[in-house]
């Protein structure tokens, strides 16, 4: 079976956050980037399906040139090839425009299954997978914690709130948004890293896709939120703050005996 996995490169979790001059993105100099966390789980799921059923895993990524590094990481872990939709201004796109761009290149592949992460760590739209399904005319499901395939049908474990789950069945092809924790992602091996050097990455300029450009929504500005709650910060050496905290918990908040 042919599986497309959508992988976004995002700023590293511990990267310091400085808002750029244009106020709609962050300063990219001096920060690291990494694979969006749930996308790593989606990739692992795709690789396992390929290992048990045969077929091909194709990575689709929309982003600037730097995204190649994350694409290569996915190839090193075992994906077969990749399509990179290149757009240095990808962060200006609204979710529908991003999904349209990815859908345009995915459509040509006619995959049996399309996996995305549940949510990106940077924009956090939480909707690209659902939009892809709508654009491609396919059924979808989100917050997926287990995938079973039999007789050309999917049986999925979908997460609900407060520790509940639900089984859902649907036909293939379909689009699934994968939740973190569904599996244990592998690390790339040295052999995988070497093999990845020969794997094809097809670059497509987003502008060449000829897609409509009117946005449905616009980010006007991003900003660091003002704290509204009064937190009492305790300063000093570890020993001093430890003593101060215990004192406060005992005698001020009265929550410790």
């Amino acid at each position, binding site marked *: 079976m042919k599986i497309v996995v959508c992988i976004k490169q995002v700023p590293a979790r511990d990267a310091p956050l400085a808002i750029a001059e244009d106020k709609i993105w962050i300063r990219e100099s001096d920060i690291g980037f990494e694979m969006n966390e749930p996308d790593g789980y989606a990739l692992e799921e795709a690789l396992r399906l390929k290992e048990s059923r045969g077929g091909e895993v194709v990575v689709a990524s929309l982003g600037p040139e730097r995204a190649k590094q994350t694409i290569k990481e996915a190839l090193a872990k075992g994906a077969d090839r990749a399509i990179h939709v290149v757009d240095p201004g990808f962060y200006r796109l609204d979710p529908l425009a991003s999904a349209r761009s990815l859908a345009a290149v995915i459509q040509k592949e006619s995959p049996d299954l399309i996996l995305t992460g549940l949510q990106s760590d*940077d924009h*956090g739209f*939480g909707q690209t997978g659902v939009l892809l399904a709508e654009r491609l005319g396919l059924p979808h499901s989100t*917050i997926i914690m287990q995938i079973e395939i039999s007789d050309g049908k999917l049986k999925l474990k979908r997460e609900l709130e407060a520790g509940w789950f639900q089984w*859902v069945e649907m036909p293939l092809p379909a689009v699934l948004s994968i939740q973190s924790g569904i599996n244990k992602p592998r690390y790339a091996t040295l052999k995988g890293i070497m093999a990845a050097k020969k794997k094809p990455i097809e670059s497509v300029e987003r502008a060449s896709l000829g897609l409509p450009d009117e946005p449905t929504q616009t980010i006007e500005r*991003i900003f660091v939120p003002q704290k509204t709650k009064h*937190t009492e910060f305790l300063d000093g050496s570890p020993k001093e703050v*430890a003593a101060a905290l215990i004192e406060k918990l005992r005698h001020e908040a009265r929550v410790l005996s």
Partner: protein
Amino acid sequence: MKILAVAEQRQGKWNPLTWETLVAAQQLAEKTSAELCAVLAGSDIAGLGEELSARRVSEVLLLDHPLLESYTADGFTIALRGLVEQSSPDLVLLPHTYQVRDFAPKLAASMGKGFVGDCVGYRWEADRLVLTRQMFQGRANADVTFAGPPPWVASFQAGAFRPDQVARRESGQAPVRKIDVDLKPEQIRTRPLETFREARQAVDLTEAPIIVSVGRGIKEQANIALAEKLAKLVGGELAASRPICDEGWLPMDRQIGSSGQTVAPKLYLALGISGAIQHVVGMKGSRTVVAVNKDRNAPIFEIADYGIVGDLFEIVPALIAQLENPQP
């Protein structure tokens, strides 16, 4: 202006986020002199419709159809889209539940419109709606506006509005209207099966008066012992954020948050937890929250009563030492 506020129920029980979104919708309707209709989808929901009609809305619209008994993205999208096309609202507001995030983008996109999801607030400014939503895992906020003509679709994050502020009608009830739903079984491509919980919860954290909770800042499974020692000394239970349970470092039944347990102890000590909303909804009812985090801008400090900016591997041993051997 006309606003539809979409309520949510499952098997006859309200999702409590319904009331928060209704508050947002009521306040916006008041500000803009808009007409506000509450919408509910399901099967056999007349009773719930009555409950909605006691709230301050001009009308309650019921999408009551056997095929809407169990949620499906196709069924709910088709039913709601039919209603939107019929009643031409400017704005459709929904609670950002796991169900809504599964179909609202599709609902909007199927009309060529955008969905602004998971908003934490809004402003009505110069005759337009400015929504605020989080980016970068809550480390930044974004002001977002809709482009192009209505209808616009948006959802609100848990905790963005206070459910107890829902306005009731001064007298009587709002009219309840059943909307014709044009839905055929073959239009629904997914088949929802049973809902279930994993193996019985071994610990009930909801009863614990003190909880020591660890996040990814704990770095390695071996370091959990450190937090465990602290938990013992303060007479508390150990809990964790999702990534810790995903890794299998602690069992799932110790996960706090929207997918795990909701707790309200008198003391919640968050060690190396960033404070993502999905975690915070599970513990924000705690009486006293202490956060230890090396990042001063971590969102957890937004809800902490006491904050320590520092390395938990220095702070926690110091706390343990202090508890074992009190020193002035």
